[in-house]
Each structure stands twice: as C-alpha cells, then as structure tokens.
C-alpha cells in the first residue's frame, strides 16, 4: 500500500519534477559547466579546465577581498538586524495590540517600491544640500557629516533593505512561544531575564534562525547598496561576478566566482538547517 502511494505520488509530481529539473537545475548545471570552461571562451561542455578556479585562488588576485567584504558585511548586517528586529517583533506580538497589523504593513510597504529607487532616495537624504544637510544648515547646525560613498553607508543600506526579511520570520518565531510557558516560568520565580533566556529565546530560535539565514543569504548577494550608496568604496563579490560577465567578458571566471559563492552560501544554509527542526517552525509540533 505504501509502495503504491509513493509511486502514484511520484507520478503526479512528475510534471513539477521535470519542470524543476529543466527550469532550475539546467541553468545551474550550465553555470557549473561554464566554471570549468576555458577562460574567456564560450566553450561550455566542450572544454574542461580548473584554470578559472586557480585564477581565483591565485595569490596575486585580490578578489578574496571581495569575498571578505561580502561575507563580513553580511555577517555584521545579520547581527545588527537580529538586534534591531527583535524588539519590533516582540512589539508586534505583545505590545502594539491593534496597531500591530498597521506596523506590519508599514514594514512591508517599502517592498512594493524597487530597491534601487529606495536607495536613490536615501542618496537624496544624505547628499550634500540634501534632506539632512539642508535641514541642519537651515537650523544653523550644519553642515551634516559626510556619510555617503563609504562602507558604513553600504552597511546601513543593507540593514534597511533586509529588515523585513528578518522581522517577519522572527515575529512568527516569537508568536509560537506559548504564553502559558512564560507565565508558568514567571510563577515559578523566574526573573524577566531568566524567562527570556530559558524560555522565550530557545522557543523562538527557529524563527530567529530562519530570519538570520534569509538575511545573511540575501546580504551576501548584495550589490546595489555598495554601488548606489557606497559609491563602490567596497567591491562585493557579486559586483565582481557582474564585471566578469560584462566588461571583462570572462564568463567562465564569473561562473567560477558564482559557483564558489553558491558553495559558501549552500554550506552556510545546510549548517543552519541541520540544527533546525523545520516541522516545529511550521507549527507541526
């Protein structure tokens, strides 16, 4: 009976499986194949070389700094977001009451506007004679400190862009902490800090980890913030991939960088997911 179920399930799933294989796996296979193609050629599937990877790992190649910037900025961004989003997520669950949905909408709303447009908006905000500088000047407190075109503003842009992706999984995680347990812990004499550390945080952890995973994966791939706000004061690895595919026209090198990035992000994701009980996160306790 069980065997029959499996095979009919497979049968019904086959259109989707074929679709996934072609639409999802084929481009990925092509990218991987390109990473082993002769440098600066289009000889995909007809040549095999490790030259692209050895070029990346060549000691004279400074592309490692791009990996360091991307991974470093993503790590700091994720930690900052966890700290910033936690109180908001707590508020959405416990404090904002009937305003909670309004607050949620306010956080979702910017997602309807293109990321680039929002980032250009921030440039207007921080630029010389822009919103901040103009207001401070008119109050006689100017000029505003120069913040644009720096790694710091790149980080700010990333924190701003990825906030919703941390906030909502975290809100979901916190909403799954049974109030009874918190109350019981308090009744048994647990202080606020202890209840938070022993009850709330562990129970909300799956949501927090999913939020951190999502934001870090997205943030490693960030490029617009470094370009628009940061004035390319740092070159992220995705920007390097872009250069390889455009101005350099070295698709195999771009593919090799992309494969390395996928491996790093994939490894990170697997490491986190292996420590996570997805069933619990999805509420099927």
């Amino acid at each position, binding site marked *: 009976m069980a065997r029959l179920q499996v095979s009919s399930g497979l049968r019904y799933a086959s259109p989707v499986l074929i679709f996934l294989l072609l639409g999802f796996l084929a481009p990925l296979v092509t990218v991987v194949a390109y990473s082993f193609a002769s440098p600066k050629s289009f000889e*995909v599937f007809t040549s095999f070389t490790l030259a692209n990877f050895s070029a990346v790992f060549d000691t004279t190649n400074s592309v490692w700094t791009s990996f360091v910037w991307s991974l470093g900025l993503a790590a700091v961004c994720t930690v900052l977001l966890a700290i910033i989003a936690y109180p908001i997520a707590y508020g959405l669950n416990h404090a904002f009451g009937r305003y909670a949905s309004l607050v949620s909408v306010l956080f979702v709303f910017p997602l309807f506007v293109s990321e680039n447009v929002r980032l250009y908006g921030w440039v207007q905000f921080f630029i010389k004679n822009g919103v901040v500088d103009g207001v401070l000047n008119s109050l006689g407190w100017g000029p505003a400190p120069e913040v644009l075109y720096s790694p710091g503003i790149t980080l700010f842009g990333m924190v701003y862009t990825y906030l919703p992706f941390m906030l909502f999984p975290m809100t979901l995680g916190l909403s799954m902490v049974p109030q009874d347990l918190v109350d019981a812990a308090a009744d048994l004499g647990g202080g606020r800090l202890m209840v938070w550390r022993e009850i709330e945080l562990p129970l909300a952890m799956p949501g927090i980890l999913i939020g951190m995973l999502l934001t870090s994966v997205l943030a490693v791939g960030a490029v617009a913030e470094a370009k*628009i706000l940061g004035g*390319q004061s740092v*070159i992220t690895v995705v920007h390097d991939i872009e250069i390889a595919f455009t*101005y350099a026209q070295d698709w195999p090198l771009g593919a090799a960088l992309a494969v390395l990035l996928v491996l790093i992000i994939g490894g990170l994701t697997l490491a986190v997911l292996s420590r996570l009980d997805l069933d619990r996160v999805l509420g099927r306790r």
Partner: protein
Amino acid sequence: MNHVSRRNLLKMMGVGAGAMALGGGSLLASSSAFAARNKELNILCWEGYNSAQVLDPFRSMTGATVKAESLTNDPTMINRLRGGETSVWDLINVNNPWARKVMAPAGLIKPLPRAEFDHYFDAMLPDFKAPYKWAMSEDGKDLLGMAQRFGPFNYVVNTKKISRATAEDTGWDLFNDPALAGKYGIQESDDWNVFDIFLIAGINPFVVHTPAEMEKFQQTAIKVFKGAKMVSDVASLNQAMVAGEIDLYLTGGTYTVSPARADGYPEMRGITPLRGPVDGKGGVSWIEITSVVNNPAISPLATDFLKYVQKPDVAHTVAFAEGTFNPVTQMGNPECFKLFTKEELDIIQWDSLAEEMSRCVEYDIVPEYAAALDMITAAKRMR
C-alpha cells in the same frame, strides 16, 4: 567552428524538453523557428533606439513586432552574438571599432547594399562622408553599418568650480593633481576608464604597450581610484555634481552630462583636453555604427529600419530619445538640423562640438584590454 555553442546547447535541451513533454511525439513545433520573419525585428542597442518615441512610429508604419534590448557596454553585446545569438538579433548598434575590426571578420554581421545606403552619407556632417572609415570593412569594399549618434567622451567638469579654459588646458593632468583628490568621481564604464587611465598616465591607449607602460598604467590606476570620492553610474555622478559632492568626473561627455544640462545645469560641461599623448590629441570620441546581424533568418525589416532612422525627423528623435541626448551625423542635413531648438543645441554642446571632435581620436580597441581591466578592478578594491 566545431564546438557546441551555448545557444545550440540550450536549443538541444529545449528540443529534448519538447520531446519529453509531447511524450516523444512530433517535433513539428521546432520548424516554426524557420518561419518567415517579415513582421518582426529584434534590435540589440544602446539605450535610445529602444525608446517608444523611436520604435512606435516604425511599429505602426510596418505593423511589425519590434523588440529592442538596450545594454550599456559594447563587449557584452558583441559576446551575445559570439555566444550564438546571431539567430536572435537583426540589428546591432555598438561603437565604431567593433564592426570593421571584430564583428565583420568573425562573420557576425553582413554588409549593407551600398547602392541603397551610400547616398545617406552625403547628407551627414562633413566628417562622415562616404566612404566613412568606421562604416567600411578593413579592405574598404563593404559597407558594414550606418553612423548616427556620436560624441566626444572624456571628462565632465562643473565650470563654476573649474573653468572650461583651465579644464581644457590642464587636460588629463587634472586627475594627477593631488589638490583635486576626493573631489572627483569615476563613471563605472570600465572599458572607457581603461582609455582614460592610459591618457592620465600620458600613454596612447590604442597601441601595443611595453611592460614598463603597463606598470605605469597600474600605478596610475591605483592612484586615480584612490583619489576618487565615488565610482558610480551616470545619474549618481550628475546628481553628486549638482549637489556639490564632486567637481568633475571621468569618463564623461555629451552622452553623460546632457541630462544634467537639460535639467537646467548648463555649468556642467563635457570637456575635451587641448592636447594629449595620441599624436598630440588627448580626447577620445565614439561613433555608433548600426549593422545588420548575420542572422540565417534575417528580418527584411532590418534594412528598412536603418533607412527609417536616417529620416530627418526620426534622426532628431534619436538624438533626443529618452535617457541621454547626443548629436547625430544627420545634423549635416539642413532639414534635420532645423528641427533642433536653440536649447537642444545647447544641451548637446553644439557650440564646441566640431572643435572638440577635432581634438579627439576615435574609440579603438586596446590590445591589452583584459590585463588593463584586471588592473582597474584590483585598483578599485584597493580604494
């Protein structure tokens, strides 16, 4: 060519998918690829030719489906054809050297019928009369494309901060001046930045270079990128100029600064240096050449479109299509020229265009481009 191209591979995968989807049934669908294409036209171009102002009248005139994809660098477009997309595109619009030096020898484009097109050059500005070098094959026999938009492309200066005379006279040494460090930006067109770094180093970009020259290029790249306040896109650089964050930027010219001038900032100006290391010239110019792709199922509309954009009113629309504003070769035709208002002529710096072009060498291919680009990318990381 014995290897499987990316496109062929994808095609095979597509056919395979079709076969699977049809349960191994008929492959008749694939024959539609060879159907007549007299009602469709695909254009690979710089922005402007893909605008509704240019394409819509052609669409209604011909009833055709016209698709245009715009990209902002030549190497990518050329490599789309190299990668197997010659069967997709009918027209390709790139800068001057690529048609005669790369695309024609590689068989990516095909010649135009000279009897139908040569006479259009008669009405162009004096520098573009037939046989116009960059529109012709290396042997001078074939007409490989039509010239339209062009312009000098060096650096842009806020003339309220640095006068036009000083900027022209100082030339590329502006970017060697420690006093201007932190006051300039760099436009992210890295292929042009390769030219500019050579010029700042006092080296002709378009010849074969010695290791010592490449070393000087590298040192100059590191210095210039370190001194830049920002590296960004055209819009951000113009915005930073207007806001006073920076006083000048490379690479730029009419093409990049015209939107700012149109917005009411005539003090922003594309500058061509008075002198430089290329036979005494220090400026570089670009001329777009639009060619017919060597597509096995070429649309008959490809040549029709090339004729359409020669019309005075359409040429004027091309000059002022969305995005950036540029002079066009058809301004040599009084019928076309009279369509330009005084404001429009001012936006494209018509007053100095001829003298600036005379101080420029035409965009060409840098022999060590790949190595130079790597040095630029490394210099960016060291900022």
